[in-house]
């Protein structure tokens, strides 16, 4: 973990509101995406993401800097929140199609890619069929573009384990997408 990141966390632990806000700005998108692909609902994902950071502030006292990125801890908080939400609302939220936003500008896409466009909502539904590690490696490596080393730090695994994991995750996701019929649109 970079020294500036550690310093920021220490300041936040001492109650520095600005440091807390800085951590929020830095990690909000990643936490929001994680929540979105777990619940498949934008509003709920926004609420959950905000709640993740509130809990982070409340529990900063028990957080110990041990070399793992803060994001790994935030993912843990988010996962617990999602589980709680699922328990409260029933097994799984429906993903409404009207929430789908235009994913990418079609003009910037290769022609063949436009034909086989993968929708985020469908991807979220398919990812619900993966394990937590598989979900995180798909999200981190292919959606957010992290390196194997970064994923290894995030999941506390070696790079070799990440390579193996990404293979299994891609294979599992492909099967899940077929089950969800994501390519038949």
């Amino acid at each position, binding site marked *: 973990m970079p020294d500036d990141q550690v310093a920021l966390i220490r300041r936040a632990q001492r109650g*520095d509101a600005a440091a807390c806000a800085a951590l929020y700005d830095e990690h909000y998108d990643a936490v929001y995406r994680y929540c979105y692909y777990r619940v498949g609902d934008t509003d709920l994902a926004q609420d959950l993401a905000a709640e993740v950071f509130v809990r982070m502030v409340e529990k*900063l006292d028990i957080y110990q800097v041990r070399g793992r990125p803060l994001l790994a801890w935030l993912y843990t908080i988010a996962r617990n929140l999602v589980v709680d939400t699922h328990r409260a609302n029933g097994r799984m939220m429906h993903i409404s199609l009207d929430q789908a936003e235009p994913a990418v500008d079609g003009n910037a896409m290769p022609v063949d890619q436009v034909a086989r466009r993968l929708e985020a909502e469908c991807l979220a539904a398919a990812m619900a069929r993966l394990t937590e590690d598989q979900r995180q490696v798909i999200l981190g490596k292919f959606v957010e573009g992290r390196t194997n080393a970064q994923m290894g730090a995030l999941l506390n695994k070696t790079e070799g384990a990440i390579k193996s994991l990404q293979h299994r995750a891609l294979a599992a996701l492909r099967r899940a997408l077929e089950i969800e019929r994501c390519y038949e649109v």
Partner: protein
Amino acid sequence: MRSDFDATLDRCLADLAAGASLDTCLARHPDHAAELRPLLELAVDLQYVTTPRAADGARAEGRQRVLAAAAARLEQRPSFATWWRRAVLALRVPVWRPAAALALVLLVATAAFLLVASTSSLPGDAFYPVKLARQAVQLAFTFDPLKERILADQFATERRYDVGAALSMGRTATVHFEGILESIDEDRWLVSGLPVVVSDATRIDGEPYRGAPVDVRGELSGAGNVRALSVFVDPDHAPWPEMTGTATSTPTPTASLPPRTAAPTATARPPATLTAPLPPSTPTGTATPTITPTPVRTDEPGGPAGATASTTATPLVISSPLPATGEPTATRQPTEPVETPSPPGPTDTPQPTRTPLPSVTRQPTNTPRPTETPLPTDTPPPSATPQPTEKSDPGETPEPADTARPTETPEPTNTPKLTKTPEPTETPKPGDDDGSGRAACKKQGVATARRRA
């Protein structure tokens, strides 16, 4: 093989991210092309997936919530748990280490305090059970049988002392101790100097007799005695074995005979050979058996006069060899006779009237005291007794014979203590089971047993 494919897949993914085309990558790995293709296509698809963005308003709102939480956290007075966590974080060590260290320190401090506080505790004190527990643990971890026995005796003595102290303070508490049954007076017993009251409610295991080692559980009545709840008579210490008459011949056989049995034998002869046996006895040191004679002798009714004389005489003999067993009353007397040899000998003859003391000891109850009478220092007097011989007043030597006169003096005989009590006459002979003689043996047995311990 699998890891080989994992590496190939990862290499292709890296090439795609760097801008290479899918076909180029597959052309580089024709062996895995069929398996690689669907995975690489999916990876490309994922790159073009756009996650719905969070609304700016929601993002800002979330930021405000975080700032509010940070402010609230500052306003909150930190709890002890929070303070502890912050302190530990400042130390940069895992939380459990300081907690474990603190717990350990507290545990050790508490244990040390309890041990120290319990050391001087008495029955009725809150920490007295701790003291007993400490003793039990100490015994449990003593594996040398000899050391264990010594320790057990030490603790038993300590507990009797504690009970005595608590009695003197008028406390009421439950107690447990071991001791020697010194006397039985109906419901009032004396156990190693501690008064014990026995009632119908008292559970008594075994046949109690004077000199028996007993285990007493009871309550301090607050009136200076112990109300016994249960008394256990140690079965291992059966009544004292019958005396063997063989020993009566001479004290010397003590070498072969056990010290206890020999003791009674010596008693018989002494009166006549008073002066003679003394010197040899002291050097041999086997006198231990000879000591016992005194009580036996006193009891012996054989001749009242002779008995009294012998009693005074035997102690002399006995005392010199046996420092440990010495009966208090007997050993003291020897010194006096030493003085008597001087001219006023005859006048001193009244001293034999003191011989009644032995007669008192004649009562078995006093005999247990042998344990208390470790006046070995008095033994030297016997060595002094030779002085009369040194004075070499052969004519004076008869003085001891004069001392025998006291026996002649009607007083001893008159003394009702001897004549009155018919028991001695019956008991003296080992063959008779009157009980008193056996009791005397028991006392001696207890005394010797204690000496061994």
